[in-house]
């Protein structure tokens, strides 16, 4: 005997109610189920496939021409050393400038800004994150390189990259601080800490893992950017000088972007090698970021994603 079940009807809006209970799962429905999940599987393959293809392509192109001496000579003599050093100098610059400004604005948004200003600042930061890097590079060129007569220089490049990555640093700082367990603050305040002490000794300290992941993302972005650097830092075969302005610098993305099309095979090989070094650097940064998250999850109130 079958139980009485609700028959299909109509909603007030005129839409039909399907009566799912009255039928067994028909072949057509099972087929549709299978087909749709297979399509999703195909999509996943189309996502992972190109990733592996890109990585394999980079490694293959570079493996054919790789010499370890590339790491010890400059681009003038078939190596990458000055570009690697330049990229690292740039990263240090970004870490310092974007680190200070980004973390400070993140802390301000999370802790001190009144609600309305907080909303405005968040929105502004999201908008900034959407500005194309070439536009930032162009503005830096017009305003800093030409406008302030700095010439192609490290400072102009660092500032351009800073503007590019600040939204990420600020956002992750804000999140990290807002995830510090309330009990920590309450405990510290109960012990008679002043607000500044609570901030510095408790909140900030337990937010450090989240903040450092944000900084690592910023570094990963900086490593891979080309467009904002082309016209702020130009390029040189020599080593970086200690001058902050009027100091052209070599960097890896330039080598990859320009040298692949140069007439000599030495230069073309360097482009492939530079691409490999770039990918290795980025993957290493991502793995370090993961490690930081893994090692320090105990501090966060909600489970890290």
């Amino acid at each position: 005997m079958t139980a009485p079940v609700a028959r299909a009807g109509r909603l007030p809006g005129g839409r039909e109610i399907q009566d799912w209970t009255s039928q067994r799962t028909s072949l057509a429905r099972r087929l549709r189920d299978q087909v749709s999940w297979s399509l999703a599987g195909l999509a996943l393959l189309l996502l992972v496939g190109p990733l592996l293809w890109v990585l394999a392509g980079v490694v293959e192109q570079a493996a054919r021409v790789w010499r370890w001496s590339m790491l010890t000579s400059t681009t003038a003599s078939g190596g990458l050393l000055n570009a690697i050093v330049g990229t690292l100098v740039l990263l240090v610059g970004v870490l310092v400038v974007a680190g200070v400004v980004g973390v400070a604005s993140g802390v301000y948004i999370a802790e001190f800004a009144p609600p309305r200003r907080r909303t405005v600042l968040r929105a502004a930061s999201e908008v900034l994150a959407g500005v194309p890097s070439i536009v930032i590079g162009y503005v830096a060129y017009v305003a800093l390189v030409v406008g302030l007569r700095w010439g192609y220089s490290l400072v102009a490049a660092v500032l351009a990259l800073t503007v590019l990555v600040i939204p990420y640093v600020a956002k992750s700082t804000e999140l990290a601080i807002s995830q510090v367990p309330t009990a920590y603050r309450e405990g510290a305040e109960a012990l008679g800490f002043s607000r500044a002490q609570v901030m510095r000794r408790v909140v900030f300290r337990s937010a450090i893992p989240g903040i450092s992941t944000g900084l690592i993302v910023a570094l990963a972005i900086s490593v891979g950017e080309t467009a904002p650097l082309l016209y702020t830092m130009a390029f040189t075969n020599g080593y970086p000088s200690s001058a902050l302005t009027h100091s052209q610098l070599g960097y890896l993305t330039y080598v990859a972007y320009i040298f692949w099309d140069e007439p000599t095979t030495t230069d073309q090989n360097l482009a492939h090698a530079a691409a490999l070094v770039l990918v290795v650097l980025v993957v290493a940064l991502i793995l370090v970021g993961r490690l930081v998250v893994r090692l320090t999850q105990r501090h966060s109130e909600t489970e890290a994603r």
Partner: protein
Amino acid sequence: MVAVLVVEAWPAIRFNGWAFFTSSDWTIGSLYSPPVTTGGVTHLLGVHYGALDLVVGTLECSAIALAIGFPIAYGAAVLVVERLHRRLAAVLGLCLEVLAGIPSVVFGLWGVLVLGPVLSSDVYPVLAKLPDIPPLSVFRGPVGNGEGLLTAGIVLAVMIVPIMAATTRDLLRQVPIGPKEGAEALGMTRHEAFRTVQSRWVRSGVVGAAVLGLGRALGETIAVALVSGSQIHSPSNIYDTMTTIAATIVNQLDSALTDPTHFAVRSLAEAALALLAITLIVNVAARLLVRRSSRDTALPVGAGL
């Protein structure tokens, strides 16, 4: 930033007028004849800047990227959230992060050295033989050497998949379990349950994710500069060379600097301003859509990479 661009571009805006957006002739003018002054603006003889091809190229290229990339990102995200084991999902999360982190210059090199040749020798000839029926007839015509509109669209698609997939994944994870269980208890297949519950729950957020990807595609510079062929003209078919606003800025700033009247640089500033306006509109729209669908949840959506 907007102020710098407007000040820099103002003479160009005045001189070029609306023709900047309605004509498609981009000429730097004669470098060998003395500069002339029209209405207070000094420029070279015979200049004409019409950015129609650039704007259209930018939009076409991003539209192709979205059309290819979005189904992949959506399908993959759905599969990861609904069907895959947690551990496998974490591995794919890492894949997405790496894919998002690979520098655009590396994608560009891969596109021009690996993907382009494969497509033009093996894939495009097949596509070009498709029957001449309206939706398919766009694929007809000479296939070129692999640098062009469709290749640029495909490379961009690979590049914007991570942000769209990650955002969609985070949205899907916020769908409460109750309605899902209810749907399955009614005897729906998983696919039917997904269509009735989850997909509606995240609908506007998913549109936002797509638009976020679109914003990335519009502003992408280096990869497009490498694989598009960088020809300022309107492509004669889907395989033909083309260029975008961002790629033109990076390609032309060098030669623009040779213009003693500074007018070429000003015109590029106007192009940069147009690009900024387009991407800002797109990004703000995307953020609003994503936010609206996740207003009551604590998790950050589309934050970071």
